């Protein structure tokens, strides 16, 4: 998915040592990173991690306490929101209730002083882009949530912003619509070629749509990388825990060899696996994803005995909870054949995992 990105990449947004404090509360510690042109960039984190604050600082609604923000190489620090070539899709959509959809979409263009003909053409194009051309003369309160969402997108995209900011735009929609809108957003980004900066607390959304994800936690960057990087190579326990599901096992670091570590884990085995930030004698955890554990065990992997203590059938997958010598492991098993026999609770099983699938994370 990331292969198509052209190199060298031009920077759309540069965040340099930007921090934000509200009174005594440090919402965001100094962070620095770049967002590239034509990228679907996601700021991901739990609520209160500073992601919305960061977005609002790019839009100009908040001023950074320190640091500076540049848009296409130009410092926009001193520019008010209405002079920044950046548009926002608000969480509540914030459509003007007294204007028709057409007028809503045209609002930005009028303020930019586009001549009437060009404006009308652009509004029609935008409404068509979001499949809302039939509703042009309606008012926002006559629309469903998904339709409002589309108009908010059309309105924000119409003035051809250099960067489009999206503040949890899917959170107000129901599950089914949310999934459909993910695809639409992704398609829209590709079609328009505009840089999207997307804020969400939903890790699945982030993995699904993004070119790159910046995971924020406790007001700082936890990890920045492609969805694959972040899922497969979490840089710390926070990221491993926040993105997807995982099993954490206490690990005692015996020796370190560059980016690998030899550890002993409570299952009574010693293994050598990729590591990050581990120290000999220091506290560390081993993270192993539920789908990377084999049930039943496979040859050549680290194997252990266990008892099934829980089984949840989810259609495509069955989630098992296994008690392995006092360590509780969650295992996700694909039901690859029709009517795969589910394992019974109380059954004794042998399970295994490859050392290469495990990650040792220092804390």
């Amino acid at each position: 998915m990331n292969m198509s990105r052209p190199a060298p990449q031009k920077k759309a947004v540069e965040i340099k040592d930007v921090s934000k404090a509200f009174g005594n509360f440090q919402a965001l510690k100094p962070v620095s990173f770049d967002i590239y042109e034509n990228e679907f960039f996601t700021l991901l984190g739990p609520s209160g991690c500073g992601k919305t604050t960061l977005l609002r600082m790019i839009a100009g609604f908040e001023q950074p306490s320190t640091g500076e923000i540049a848009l296409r190489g130009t410092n926009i620090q001193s520019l008010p929101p209405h002079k920044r070539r950046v548009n926002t899709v608000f969480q509540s959509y914030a459509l003007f209730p007294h204007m028709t959809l057409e007028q809503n979409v045209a609002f930005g263009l009028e303020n930019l002083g586009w001549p009437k003909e060009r404006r009308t053409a652009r509004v029609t194009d935008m409404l068509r882009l979001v499949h809302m051309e039939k509703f042009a003369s309606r008012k926002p309160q006559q629309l469903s949530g998904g339709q409002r969402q589309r108009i908010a997108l059309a309105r924000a995209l119409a003035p051809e912003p250099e960067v489009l900011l999206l503040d949890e735009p899917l959170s107000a929609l129901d599950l089914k619509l949310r999934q459909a809108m993910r695809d639409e957003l992704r398609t829209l980004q590709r079609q328009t070629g505009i840089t999207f900066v997307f804020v969400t607390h939903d890790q699945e959304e982030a993995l699904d749509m993004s070119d790159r994800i910046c995971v924020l936690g406790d007001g700082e960057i936890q990890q920045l990388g492609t969805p694959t990087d972040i899922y497969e190579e979490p840089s710390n326990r926070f990221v491993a825990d926040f993105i997807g599901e995982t099993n954490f096992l206490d690990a005692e670091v015996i020796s370190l060899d560059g980016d690998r570590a030899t550890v002993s884990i409570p299952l009574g085995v010693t293994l050598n696996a990729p590591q990050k930030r581990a120290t000999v004698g220091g506290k560390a955890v081993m993270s192993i994803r539920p789908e990377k554990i084999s049930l039943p065990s496979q040859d050549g992997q680290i194997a252990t005995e266990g008892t099934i203590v829980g089984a949840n059938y989810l259609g495509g997958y069955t989630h098992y909870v296994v008690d392995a010598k006092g360590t509780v492991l969650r295992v996700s098993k694909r039901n690859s054949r029709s009517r795969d026999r589910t394992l019974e609770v109380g059954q004794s099983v042998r399970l295994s995992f490859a050392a290469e699938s495990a990650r040792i994370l220092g804390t």
Partner: protein
Amino acid sequence: MNQRLRLPSWNVLGLLPAQLIMLLTLIIPVGIIILVSFSTRGPYGGFDYVFTTAPYKQILFNEGWSGELEFNPQYLIVVARTVILSLATTIICLALSFPVAYFISLQKTSAKMLLIYLVTLPFWVSMIVRVYSWIIILGNDGVIAKALRALGITNNIGSLLFTDTAMLIGLVYSYIPLMILPVFASIEKLDPALVEASHDLYGSRLTTLRRVILPLCRPGMVAGAILVFVPCLGAVLEPVLLGGGKTMMMGNLIQLQFGAARNWPLGAAISIVLMCAVMIFLLWRGIHAMRKEGRENGA
């Protein structure tokens, strides 16, 4: 289902006290006024129950000795002055209220409560006292005149009191809280995200005010305008105290008919005309608002 069917009868019973109060304090007195307005003026004031439309004719015409009607604009001038002063009051109140209400809405919750309390504070003092205080301020020996004299700017500023301006100041002062409160309420209801959205879409502060804030605060402004305009039409204290009874408004014209002029039927007739004018105005507003709502909700 059963309960829903029974509900209406309870509603009617529950409303009975309110309806009774309305009947005794509003419907019956208005009925009496209508009755009086079609009665003949009594020889010693008061009225006799003899049907006549004379009081209504009297509003526009003088009756000559031989019974011929002669157009007389004197009451019409009072009506015009009343409408103009009321309109001016409404407009000035609107212009002053909006910044005040907006400023209050930007404050922290505690400061907001205090400021709103301060806006309503004058209501705790008698209207007469409040209007009277303007005599002290505007009078020949009043605060303004004395201040100007003390500063040596002018010795004779002419009379500030007993003019249309004095009445206007009094009216604005009296009714401005009725404008600030609904305007404030509508600003409070405004979603701050809409203001941000306007800025985000390249709207300057002025554009945002003109195209987003003001249109969305219109309901509050209309409510405030009605709350100010309607009582202004019937204002009595301001013209009596600040207009000195020299320049009349409909309110003190009516009062005069029931008092010194001893022409109850004419007073009643003017009252009915005033009431009808207000009702037509409000009805027009109501229909307008309903049509607009219908347009917006209909697909």
